[in-house]
């Protein structure tokens, strides 16, 4: 953390986006995390992505649980809505908020403890329900706030800062999300914003459950040799399957690609995902093949990153439940409380 706030002064050429904001306008309070924390880089990537997408800050709701990662919504999008929930319960609160007001952009921020331990059940159900959200798991494989115990995502055999090897099997959140029906699944690395920012933009545009597992090294407790979540390890074992260029629905497509090296996926909102293939055999629209590939490569100690799976023809929870198009806050008392006669009618229809 730092004692002084970040000065408001900025570079003279700092550009403004289509709605008149600079990137700095998307910042939040000064971070109180440890110096060098990967989470701060993820916050910076979120700021960059929202600025590039010309998102109006008041249209975003940030929800988080408990932990280092769940503190970070305070450090970006200072003018957006925020809700810091009970440990591991962010998915429920997010689901409720989404049902009440479908017009906001939902950003769920969680960590490996919050999602893979205490909140694993919530994590599973929010994915299978297809809540329209971007769920970011800031994954460092360690309990930093309690000084360095292995978390549930720590790889078997990886070593703690004291040199003790982990004996338990890891929860692989990416495979879980795929298995449970998430319609957008990616993994990235806090130290690679060129990869992470387009993934966040694509996830925000995705109209369904979008999940990004971001490996985010804990500099204080999990950045030593023997760790599989350190800057050095991830850089050495990073197996990126593709590079994503995100093209928002209203932008003209100007980049030319050579045939065969790129796969295009049009999302429901009209945005286009251009996937420059690094692994030529990888098909990001094939869920089963993706699960197979991930398992295979992780067994070799590789960290598979990139856009791993996307289902462009997705439906979200609102479509499943056939809910009203208008958010509650724009409905009047008459619609929200239609009265005795309507209730009687409904009850009668159920008898």
């Amino acid at each position, binding site marked *: 953390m*730092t004692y002084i706030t*970040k000065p408001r002064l900025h570079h003279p050429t700092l550009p403004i986006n289509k709605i008149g904001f600079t990137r700095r306008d998307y910042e939040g309070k000064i971070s109180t995390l*440890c110096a060098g924390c990967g989470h701060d880089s993820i916050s*910076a990537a979120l700021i960059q992505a929202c600025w590039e997408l010309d998102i109006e800050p008041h249209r975003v709701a940030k929800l988080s649980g408990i932990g280092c990662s769940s503190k970070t919504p305070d450090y970006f999008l200072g003018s957006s809505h925020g809700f810091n929930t009970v440990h591991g319960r962010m998915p429920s609160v997010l689901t409720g908020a989404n049902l009440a007001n479908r017009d906001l952009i939902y950003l769920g921020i969680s960590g490996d403890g919050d999602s893979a331990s205490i909140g694993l059940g919530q994590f599973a159900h929010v994915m299978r329900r297809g809540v329209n959200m971007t769920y970011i798991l800031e994954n460092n494989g360690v309990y930093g706030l309690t000084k360095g115990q292995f978390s549930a995502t720590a790889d078997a055999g990886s070593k703690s800062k004291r040199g003790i090897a982990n004996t338990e099997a890891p929860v692989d959140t990416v495979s879980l999300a795929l298995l449970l029906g998430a319609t957008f699944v990616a993994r990235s690395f806090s130290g690679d*914003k060129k990869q992470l920012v387009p993934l966040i933009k694509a996830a925000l545009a995705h109209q369904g459950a979008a999940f990004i597992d971001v490996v985010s090294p804990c500099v204080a407790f999990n950045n030593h040799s023997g760790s599989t979540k350190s800057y050095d390890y991830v850089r050495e074992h990073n197996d990126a399957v593709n590079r994503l260029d995100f093209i928002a629905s209203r932008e003209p497509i100007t980049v030319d690609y050579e045939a065969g090296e790129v796969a295009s996926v049009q999302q429901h909102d009209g945005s286009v995902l251009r996937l420059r293939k690094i692994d030529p055999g990888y098909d990001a629209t094939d869920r089963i093949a993706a699960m197979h590939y991930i398992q295979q490569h992780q067994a070799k100690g590789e960290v598979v990153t990139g856009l791993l799976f996307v289902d462009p023809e997705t439906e979200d929870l609102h479509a499943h439940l056939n809910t009203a198009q208008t958010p509650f806050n724009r409905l009047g008392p008459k619609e929200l409380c239609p009265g005795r006669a309507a209730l009687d009618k409904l009850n009668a229809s159920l008898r």
Partner: protein
Amino acid sequence: MLDSANLKEGALRSTDIRIPDYFHKVVDCQWACPAHTPVPEYIRLIAAGRYDDAYMVNWTSNVFPGILGRTCDRPCEPACRRGRVEDHQAEKPEPVAICRLKRVAADNKSDIRAHLPKPAARKNGLKIACVGGGPASLTVARDLAPLGYHVKVFDQDPLAGGMIRTQIPRFRLPVEVIDEECGYVLDLGIEFRGGKRIDSMKALLSEGYDAVFVGSGAPRGRDLDIPGRKEAAKNIHIGIDWLSSVSFGHIEKIGKRVVVLGGGNTAMDCCRSSKRLGGEDVKVIVRSGYDEMKASPWEKEDATHEGIPILNYMVPMEFTHRNGSLTGVLFEKVKVEFDVQGRRKLVPTGEPNQHYECDDVLVAVGQENAFPWIEREAGIEFDDSGMPVVDKATFQSTHPKVFFGGDAAFGPKNIIWAVAHGHDAAVSIDKLLHGEDLRERPAPGVTLISQKMGIHEWSYDNDVSLDERYVVPWAEPGKLKSIKIEVELGFDPLTGFKEARRCLNCDVQTAFTASQCIECDACVDICPMDCITFTRNGDEADLRQRLNAPAKNLAQDLYVQDGLKTGRVMVKDEDVCLHCGLCAERCPTGAWDMQKFLFQMTDAGPGCRTRQRKAA
């Protein structure tokens, strides 16, 4: 993988921060100051209320802090980084009021005489003559006298100070300040011969001096030889001579209607002085456009502030007169045109000439040197324009024992340049008289020390103030009528403190150690100015385009370090760095550190001598 891969053709090599010039350039103000005054160092001392220490930092570098704090041409301020970072925050980005802060130190100090060097206890038997008692000569005398030299300073006027005393009006610079600061120098055991004009260089040289320093200034105001000059001579005055007469009280009033010709700082002093001596309708009329005028922007503003109009693009053609009395000046109207070579020219607009009636004219159209007292056979070469041939580094003339400095060396400049020349000439004289090679100039004294006090604690105030530049208060309008009452009141201590906090501490440098870096991006993310980029190496023009924010200011260096694990390089654009230290606070490994770079010129004395350094 690292070095060989990065040092492809054109790729930049790691910056060597051990070369003093690299970080010195980052301290824009100090780099721009001819005397290289450690500006951020004394501003921090002012903020800490240590006025005596702040004054002494100045006194060591520029000899006349109280005088310069009121009159300096302040080359430091246009260079100040603050003026480049406020772009979007203020309508008009403004540098730190460096010059007026110097005055805060001078105004609020206690008796600093105990801090000054003592007259030499033992003389070294070497005799130096300084011709002229202005800033250049006094600097030479100050640097040499404490070393044991017997220094004699000659001036035509009874008191020391030269143009400081004769040409700067009292309402800008009170006489007490001149007496005080010239006194500090003369008290070092210097023999001052006031009222003694040197008429012959040959005679002076024959008196057996070991070295002679000529700091006689640029005393002759240029005249304007147009029709009517002779006939109306009674009411036409050469600006600097007139100012000098005003200074010594020989002139106490001027006509009601005054025309000042010329657009330099002397013209500004002339018009403001006229206002105080009875001038009611005072105008400044200039050949060139407003922006091309030689006067400093603030001096033009001060004149305008006192209600004096400045009329541009008018060339004086004739002094009109009746019965031996001036009646006015006739002007031709001109405009700017560019010729085929793109050179700027003033051409007549064709409009009828304009006549301005007036009672007196002050001619301030420039100064020229004159050395009638230096015999051409004295062994000193002069060039075609009548200026002595002087070495730009050593200030030595073609006569090995004769040195020139200040306006006498290279024509009219400002006090701070005269001081810088004086320091260099003193070094040359000291080396000459110790049998050393003058061309071997002494290296500056440089220290680079970490400012880290704790995890998030620095020994400087890194919290950047967002205040806009404070305005120096002026005396109430009634007092603007007096030729003696100082117009500017100077900052009070509290305002001085707030203005001092605007300084970005550019001398506290961001130092990067690549071997410590784990490339976590924390510094990149926190940097408020987007100065830092990690990228693959390239040539400079290429890198400048590829940074997180384009580095368009080519006058500012890129700080490049390779040796990172990924084979990339760290590139920092020094241009708009706030020196807030957030990169170092966010750095988990100490790869970034904030280190104070203190750069001090080496003055005359044992430290400037080659043999002494080799023996040490």
